[in-house]
């Protein structure tokens, strides 16, 4: 029973880490980034390459983050910016980008599965329960990340500008906020977060060219249900991720795989605002 509670907490942490890059882009840019899955995959390969190069696995996450930010800025400039007035087209373009990225990985690394070394191996004993050390570390990182993101939005100048753009972009522009720059930075940040998240979760799983795909839909659901608020995202990850763990453990893993999607769709149908007010 105790390990189920740890499963719930760590699953929620992983979901939060994976979805946060998507949320920041959706919040500020009103853009649902379908390339998010491909960015996660890119992070996974970054972790794999770091491991293959013999660098300490602890560096894989920051390295992936930096690669993601640079790549994100590049993509924003070439693909996203021209489509800012056509939101549904922007979705499609990011989706196309996702295909291109995953095909490039398939051409470079092959279709097969690759593994990345874990910085922490084995289990540790917490409250009398043996549990995977790395999963616990990921959850701790998720909590730190949540605090850092909330602080970024509420304490920094960029956060203030970003919140202004979230609430009313035209007015923000009228006040002299360079919304183009805010958007570019946001996309870079979102892509960086996604890549870092990919690098963070790869040691738990494995990486292949389509690794990000299963995470993509779950992240969409979590983000749609939480509106634009990191505390809500944390709550949504906990509630939906928790239900997923319970259903997988006690009923069937296949049903568990569908839990987040189905549950989130039902919640949104009955209350289109989801958890955003919670």
């Amino acid at each position: 029973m105790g390990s189920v509670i740890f499963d719930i907490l760590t699953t929620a942490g992983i979901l939060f880490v994976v979805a946060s890059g998507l949320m920041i882009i959706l919040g500020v840019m009103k853009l649902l980034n379908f390339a998010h899955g491909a960015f996660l995959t890119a992070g996974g390969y970054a972790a794999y390459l770091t491991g293959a190069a013999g660098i300490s696995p602890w560096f894989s996450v920051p390295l992936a983050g930096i690669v993601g930010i640079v790549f994100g800025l590049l993509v924003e400039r070439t693909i996203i910016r021209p489509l800012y007035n056509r939101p549904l087209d922007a979705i499609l373009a990011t989706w196309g980008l996702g295909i291109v990225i995953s095909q490039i990985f398939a051409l470079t690394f092959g279709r097969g599965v690759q593994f990345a070394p874990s910085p922490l191996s084995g289990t540790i004993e917490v409250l009398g329960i043996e549990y995977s050390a790395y999963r616990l570390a990921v959850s701790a990182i998720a909590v730190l990340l949540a605090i850092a993101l909330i602080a970024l939005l509420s304490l920094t100048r960029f956060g203030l500008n970003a919140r202004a753009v979230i609430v009313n972009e035209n007015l923000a522009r009228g006040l002299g906020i360079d919304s183009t720059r805010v958007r570019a930075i946001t996309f870079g940040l979102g892509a960086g977060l996604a890549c870092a998240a990919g690098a963070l979760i790869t040691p738990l799983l494995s990486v292949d060219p389509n690794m990000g795909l299963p995470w993509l839909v779950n992240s969409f659901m979590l983000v749609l249900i939480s509106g634009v608020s990191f505390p809500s995202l944390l709550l949504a990850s906990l509630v939906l991720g928790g239900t997923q763990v319970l259903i997988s453990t006690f009923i069937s893993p296949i049903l568990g795989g569908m839990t987040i999607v189905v549950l989130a769709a039902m919640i949104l149908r009955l209350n289109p605002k989801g958890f955003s007010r919670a």
Partner: protein
Amino acid sequence: MPRKEITLSRTHRTALIGCLVGLCTVAIAPLFLDTYFTNILIRTLLLAAVVMTVDILWGYTGILTFGQSAFFGIGAYACGLVFTHYGFGPGWALGGLALALGSAAVVAAGTGWLAFFHGSSPIYASIITLALPIVLTQVIYSGGSYTGSSSGLSGFPTYFWSLEVWFWIAGCFLVLTTTAGWLLVRSDFGRVLIAIRENEDRSAYLGIPVSRIKTMLMVAAAMVASVAGFAYAAFSNVVAPELAGFQLGTELLIWTALGGRATLLGPVFAAIGIDTMSSWLSGAMPFFWKLLTGIAFVGVIVALPRGLAPLISGLWNRLRPQRNAIDFEASVVKAPGTRMLQGSFGDAPPLRIVGLSRRYGSLEVLRDVNLIGKGTELLGIIGPNGAGKTTLMRCISDGKERTTGTLYINNVEIAHSSPQQVVGLGVGRSFQNTNLFETLTVSECLKLARYRIDGASLFSRSDTVALPQPSLDILQATGLDKKLSEETKNLSHGMKRGLELAMVLATEPSVLLLDEPTAGLTRPERMAIGSVLTKLTRDFGLCIVLIEHDLDFVRAISDRVVVLHQGAILMEGTVEEVVASDLVKAVYAGHKEDESA
């Protein structure tokens, strides 16, 4: 009207010729194709029919769907499951087909219920369609030996007809469904679909049941896709989870985008071209080919949002001498016996508001508003900015808006009705800013407004609109009756206002909500609108609720004025009483705030 018959048959004749040419091509094509290509093309032609439905959903109606493959998969699995587990023969085949159609329709209706409701965002709907194939694939995986799990079903008994026969079946299916789709998007109903794409909210406020139309369309498209899937399974003798998967669903979308959305034939040819090519090339360089289509897709979305078809049709138009514009002469006629003409001179007030309030969180925008609007009355609502005037309009026209209170339209409680249901009860609402349907013509816009009452024909197009007398009056007064075939984006501001009003009146309301109908108009235009409004209340027994800042205009036409201030009714009376009131002066001048509060 001889013209009408010519134009009607022109669309149908083009469709007929196109259909026959298509069928002939399908009939003789196997003579020129080798076995390999015939084999590939059978799958491709069936998928092209599915792509055609994606174009109707996405290109014409604006529903970005990632999940059309799910219905293809449902059809395929219906065939595979019935032939594998239950039996084989003509009866079983027909039963299986019925099962395919039925389950596709049920799943589509469920998806539509989840995805489309008043206030759902297009992105949410897209995510639902994305989730559908993913969930379905999971269901197939969990089916064990019944569904064959990840390896699918194969080797079940089927009709081993020759390749030519299957080619003809697939080809005829494509040609016939595409002809039907072609007629559909050119019909009056097709205009409704475009209106939903262009401005969903406005369509709802004209009484068009947007969510129901989208769901019905989804069901119809799902059924077409399921037949294609059934045929594919029967032909290939293999069904696998990939047929329902979301990879295929997005490929359908890519072909639609590359071919040119909202061109119907573009996506069909793109599907045929690209799918044939990828079957041909993917053997040699599988990943590289996918990479190329991915890059082409991104490039087309960014640089050529309308796809490749407009390039080709542009070239075609340049090579071909321009024919005379065949834009048919649209005409308007008077609608027979309308509810509006019977009027509501009777005793029950058309509009009754009891204890209405609206809160956004802790902010109270309206509180305890009580109001009665009688027939034959023009009620002016004035008040400073932020007094809650527009919110009041919104609460009257959408049952989900208010926080508390009851609202009666013609003695019917509106409860939590959606805007289109409220229109059905007799409320017409015009908007502060003219948001019309840019690419539609004046007569098409008017026809939209009549959809609730007259419906729209699915496969043909009529060029006359029957309108109630007041609408006709406005068209005449603003000169719009001479511009019925003009696209609305080319109209002047005054004409747009006039059209907006004519459209709202065409829905035959008994309560008319007007939000600053004369903003930005010249003095003569104001006078014209003013006299139409007075005539409406006097002769047609309408109850008009009017938000207006121009007190002179209000004074000229209105019987009674309500002053809203900080969300509550401050005062009610004739224009003279209100203008003379010190309280109102204080509110407008902005001082002595505490006294008025």
